[in-house]
């Protein structure tokens, strides 16, 4: 097959051009291909950084509205009072040092045919390829009574930042003996073990400061990520399985599904009951970030992609990775986004040169801290199944921490979790 990539096209046109437009191809050749990255979370930041590592001739522009980014990972430690907001804050200075142009603006339009991106601030950026990592948005319509405004009273805290601060303040202000109600989301959602880690770390905080308080998790699901490990931790530290259990998990089958949120009454209505809370944390159902819908590349709630390149199946030249994509075999985690971003960067760098995309390799490792000196993890090693366009888990590898692991190993995993945090942040934004 004869392929015309960008470079050969420029050479061809340059060679045959009449004197009138001879300047243009020369400039284009010197400038190098342009990639616009939308979103400065772990996925977008890693993609931008690794593109420059792979090919410094690529001009990378990353567009992200916020000048400071707060990581969702480790934000549950902030809720527990074990970490400050500064401890989950990252800036974009590191990316700038790699020669990436960082623009703080909101992308409002992506023109796949015209290969350009427009922003709220009125800027336009042309690209040869676009990488979109917009993360999640909330599917408020799927949860009657709840809205962005309601989240100012009943915070989701599922995008770290002001919402994290708000929920922490509410937990601090809650009197001892209060009830903390959490509404867990239906699958699939960002950070599958996250709600249960949050319940654990809020219990860890209550145990120290408000020991008469209770936690009720209302869940539309009948099972959850790392469930046995969490329940073991809850039994060890928070009285799970006794009448004095601090955490009560109500599965869908037992009426846990939320039907309606009563914001004025600070309550959640289920099939059988109306449950009131002193603090109510509603984590809504989720979907891909707004710009993916605006670009018209979604199917259902997520973006279908080629799992080997993360290129949209609906719009050539736009790659979507991380939480927004339908790479469902891998959990929607920060590590997944970081790993997918490197695969995507490799593919984009190759495609820009007219080469075949390289064979992908992906990993996810995700730690959950359930209390003092108590942590466990899930890991997965993945390859690309080209025939099925699927990310396939390597059989026999990965899986959960052992249920019978020693206290020493649970404690070591806390330290490894904190190491993971520092390294993944530096690898993504540093």
């Amino acid at each position, binding site marked *: *097959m004869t392929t015309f990539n960008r470079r050969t096209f420029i050479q061809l046109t340059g060679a045959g051009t009449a004197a009138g437009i001879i300047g243009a191809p020369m400039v284009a050749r010197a400038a190098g291909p342009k990639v616009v990255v939308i979103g400065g979370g772990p996925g977008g930041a890693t993609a931008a950084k690794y593109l420059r590592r792979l090919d410094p001739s690529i001009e990378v522009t990353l567009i992200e509205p916020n000048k400071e980014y707060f990581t969702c990972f480790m934000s549950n430690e902030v809720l527990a009072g074990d970490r400050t907001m500064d401890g989950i804050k990252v800036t974009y200075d590191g990316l700038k040092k790699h020669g990436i142009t960082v623009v703080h603006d909101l992308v409002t339009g992506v023109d796949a045919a015209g290969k350009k991106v427009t922003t709220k601030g009125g800027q336009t950026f042309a690209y040869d390829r676009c990488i979109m990592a917009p993360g999640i948005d909330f599917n408020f319509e799927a949860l009657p009574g709840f809205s962005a405004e309601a989240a100012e009273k009943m915070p989701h805290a599922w995008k770290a930042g002001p919402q994290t601060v708000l929920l922490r303040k509410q937990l601090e202000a809650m009197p001892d003996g209060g009830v903390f109600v959490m509404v867990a989301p239906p699958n699939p959602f960002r950070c599958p073990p996250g709600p249960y880690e949050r319940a654990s770390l809020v219990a860890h905080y209550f145990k120290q400061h408000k020991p008469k308080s209770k936690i009720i998790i209302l869940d539309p699901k009948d099972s959850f990520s790392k469930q046995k490990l969490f329940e073991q931790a809850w039994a060890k530290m928070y009285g799970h399985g006794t009448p004095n259990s601090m955490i009560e998990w109500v599965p869908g089958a037992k009426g846990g599904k939320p039907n309606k949120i009563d914001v004025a009454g600070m309550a959640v209505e289920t099939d059988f009951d109306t449950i009131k809370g002193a603090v109510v944390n509603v984590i809504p159902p989720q979907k891909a970030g707004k710009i993916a819908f605006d670009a018209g590349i979604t199917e259902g709630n997520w973006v279908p992609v080629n799992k080997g390149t993360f290129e949209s199946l609906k719009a*050539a030249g736009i790659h979507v990775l991380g939480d927004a994509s339908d790479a469902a075999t891998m959990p929607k985690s920060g590590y997944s986004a970081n790993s997918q971003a490197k695969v995507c960067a490799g593919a984009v760098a190759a495609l820009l040169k007219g080469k*075949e995309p390289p064979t992908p390799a992906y990993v996810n490792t995700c730690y959950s801290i359930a209390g003092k000196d108590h942590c466990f993890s899930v890991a997965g090693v993945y390859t690309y199944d080209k025939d099925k366009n699927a990310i396939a888990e390597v059989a026999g590898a990965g899986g959960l921490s052992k249920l019978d692991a020693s206290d*020493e190993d649970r404690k070591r995993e806390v330290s490894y979790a904190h190491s993971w945090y520092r390294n993944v942040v530096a690898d993504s934004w540093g």
Partner: protein
Amino acid sequence: MTPSRVRRLLTASMVAGLTLAGAGTALAQTASPEALANTCAGCHGTDGASLGPSTPTIASLSVEYFVMSMKDYKTGKRPATVMDRIAKGYSDEQIEAMAKYFQQKPFVRVNQPVDAGKVKDGKALAKKYCESCHEEEGKIGEGVGVLAGQKLPYMQYSVVDFLGGKREMEKRQKQKFEALVNEKGKDAFDSILHYYASVK
């Protein structure tokens, strides 16, 4: 070149791009050493240089030691929290490719909190008990781990596993460990590790 020819070429280039982008693209068989190694960075740091506090730096390890570690994790011979699960995801050839990649990368030594008294004691002890295998202040690791600047908690975990019989010791290492315990007591290990953690 006429404008219509430019347009035709543009169209051809776009069609080619679409074909390349499709799910049917023939990808090469094996992930490159770099692509494989990139999957480690989330925990072990970019190019295997960990910021810690505990996850070890895997840059600059000898191929022999890297391969042995991964194979021992795979078989369960070496105790682990997570590496046993991850090592099983790679073939022997892939492990070797990653080993060669990381061996070329620099060991970046970052400041770690250490006890100055222990560092001083440990330096003398290391010279007597460790230097014969962990040469040049532990910077060289032919078939053994690089200790100079390695993460202190990680080295402490390793010693706990060695002394507790959970991790097998090589014959000469076992002799040295026993001599150190008998002659200086178990606390001597911690002094030695503080010293190695401090080496720049």
